[in-house]
């Protein structure tokens, strides 16, 4: 069973992403947050004894108030390496700004960069993406 975490401040996208995911993969486990802060709170809470609950895919919106997608990625680095090594992050954005794309490539646990909306093809892409073996480079 593929587990997905959806993070987007826009409720509409949470709804339609969940719907399309359910349509494509009826067995998918989906957990959703309308802010990165809420998502982190959940991860902090679950890391101790329920790490298995952690999704292997995170669909992360970039532009969000208070804490944006990149802030979230930075905070993720604080988690134990073995924990984040099991996660594939996919950036979801409505922006066409290339700087965001370049910035996203600095994170080894970001596997792909998608422009909204989430499509069936993207879900297939996500599902077929192999987990990489990576280490954090010093300074990151």
């Amino acid at each position: 069973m593929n587990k997905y975490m959806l993070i987007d401040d826009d409720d509409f996208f949470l709804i339609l992403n969940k719907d399309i995911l359910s349509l494509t993969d009826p067995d998918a486990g989906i957990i959703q947050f309308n802010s990165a802060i809420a998502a982190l709170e959940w991860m902090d809470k679950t890391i101790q004894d329920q790490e298995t609950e952690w999704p292997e895919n995170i669909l992360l919106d970039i532009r969000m108030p208070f804490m944006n997608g990149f802030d979230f990625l930075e905070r993720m680095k604080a988690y134990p390496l073995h924990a984040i090594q099991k996660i594939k992050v996919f950036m979801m954005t409505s922006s066409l700004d290339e700087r965001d794309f370049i910035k996203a490539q600095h994170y080894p646990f970001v596997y792909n960069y998608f422009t909204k909306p989430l499509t069936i093809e993207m879900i297939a892409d996500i599902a077929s993406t192999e987990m990489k073996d990576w280490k954090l480079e010093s300074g990151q």
Partner: protein
Amino acid sequence: MSSRNTHNLNNSPDYQELKKKYDELQLRVTRFSVIEQELIHARNQMDQEVMIYRQMQQFNTKALEDITDEFYTRLVTETLLEIFETELAFVCIDIPNTGNSALRHVEGYSLNEEQKFELHLYMINLFTDLPSGTLRSFEPRPSDKIRTILPIRHLMVTQVRDPQLNITITLMGGISDKGSPFYEPIRKDREAAFTVFSQQVLTYQTNRFKTHTIREQFNALTIEQKRITSIAENFLNFDTNPDKNIQRMVDLSVQLLSGNCSVYEKLENELIFTSSSYSKDGYHNNTSEEKICYRITHLSGRDIVCQLITNDLLQQHKSPWLSQFAGLTLLGSVLRIDKKPIGTLVVFLDSSVPINDSIFQLARILTAAIAVEERRKNALKALSESEEKYRMIFEGTPNGIIVADPVIQRFQYVNRSACQLFGYNEEEFLNLTLDDLHPAASTDDVKQLFKSLEKGEIKVAMEVPCIHKNRSIFYADISSSRISIGGRSLLAGFFTDVTQQRFDQQAILKSNIELKKINSELDNFVYSVSHDLRSPLLAILGLVQLIHQHQQSDEAMQKYISMIAASATRMDDTIKEILDYSRNARLDIVVSPVDFNLLIREIFEDVRHISPEKITLELNIKQDIPFYSDSNRISTLIKNIISNSVKYRKKGVNNSYININILITPEKAVLRFEDNGEGIEAIHQDRIFDMFYRASNSAPGTGLGLYICKEILHNINGTITLDSAAGEGSVFTVTIKNKTN
């Protein structure tokens, strides 16, 4: 009685005795008479001798006086006549190096110079091979040559010589044919005295000669001294004008070389200098020889000189040379500068000038002196050219130049630009000090800068504050360099007024900062707007994709379609807000009376439906006078604040309210918006007026509303403040200027 006595006496034995005694007495008397006569004669002779020597003594006395040669010779002859009682006397004195001008004088007879000369020759012949002091006394035969000159019957002549000085004295005394009644031949006994006298004359003559020689030498020395003094003065009294000095050298060459005239010819520019005695008129001295010189100098002299100079052979003359032209002697000397001939000095020598080394030496010195002046002339020309050049640069440059003496701490030179820069005239400027040019507060810094400049640590001291005469401050970039003027090491400062540049630069910096801010805002704006505009659109695309799926229920379809509608509305709202922003930024302010009551009620009616729950509005306006401002902008401002209150109300409650209190004064309107909504957390309060900043996610929004409020207030002279507590509500207080006039 006598006769009687005679008779008586004749026969007396006494008589005989007496007669005998008488005769004896008679004889004795006679004898005495002879002795007496001899005595008288001897006495006379003695008297004469005494007379001679007395006269000689007189001669001595007179001869010792400072008398002319003519007077001396006359004295000699007169003395001869007197002493030796001759009718004629002749003296002839041969002095070496005087040639024909030997002293001759005849007394007692008139002879012309030629006759005197012949007489002189005759005398010399008489004594050929005879020793000095020989005396000859004789009566010449009628055929004797002397009788053709002088009617002489008897003569006594002697000749004495001084072998050292080679002076020969010939003295003659003679008796003429006239046959004076008292004539007697020259007595033998006078011969000794004659010889003595001739010796005496010789002695005096040698003395006179020596005295004369010494005096002449002394005079010559005096003249030479004067000449040397004159040369020295001429050499020393240099004029600042080299041409004048050259002219003087040319004049001097005539003086020093005893020339008639001189010419100095320059090869290149045909300038002729001639000695001054001929430069004015040629008839200064009217001798024919000098006329020729004048003609040569002024008419053909130039050609001659040119010919002399251009002649290759003559050009090779290293030293002055002599040459002949038109019977005149020319002393030429080529003038060289750096071994290159540039001219010739030619002096036309007087025929009597002895040719010796010293004239060449003098010519060399004069040529060298002229060469020095020529060199100086070139140097002066070059100097004046370069001076002119530097003056042009110094005065012409827009940079202010100040030259200071660091030792005495005074300004030495300032150019026009520096005067203009600081507002002082040159005289005022030179009395200033460094402290007068820079503000007291920065004097130390300025001195430090100058030190750094001097050490070469910096090339330019940037934007140094300076004080104008009118006390205004301006800024100058200053560079400096060490210069040496007249052996003093001075410091030149170059001032460039950068006040305007500084002002412009600051303006540019300021506008750059603004531009950067605007650019960053624009960038942020584009990023945000594209996101906010695209998001609903992309949502619609996603929803359409879902609708396309076949197994959708009607319920789901209805949900998606309403979501599409909501997305479209969101997009529209965003576009409207952007338009609001753009209107505020672009449109001119239109002042009109503002009806807050109507305005607020219309806005509230428009936005209240956002909330499904009930919201109440309470509006209190205290207004005695009209309020003037831009209605459209104020409308947008109030709409944004009220719609925020509605959107961020406490959800699920029915007691939400908005209280608005407005106070209008002649100066301003104060609007207080109070709600009991969700409030704003303290950490967001500083940033809520920033563009696209969203403090809450509880309702969709662009983050533009309050930013637009702030911008509007900026344009219509107002302010906005916030007082809020999370969970309790917010109070926005807006103050807007009343534009009554």
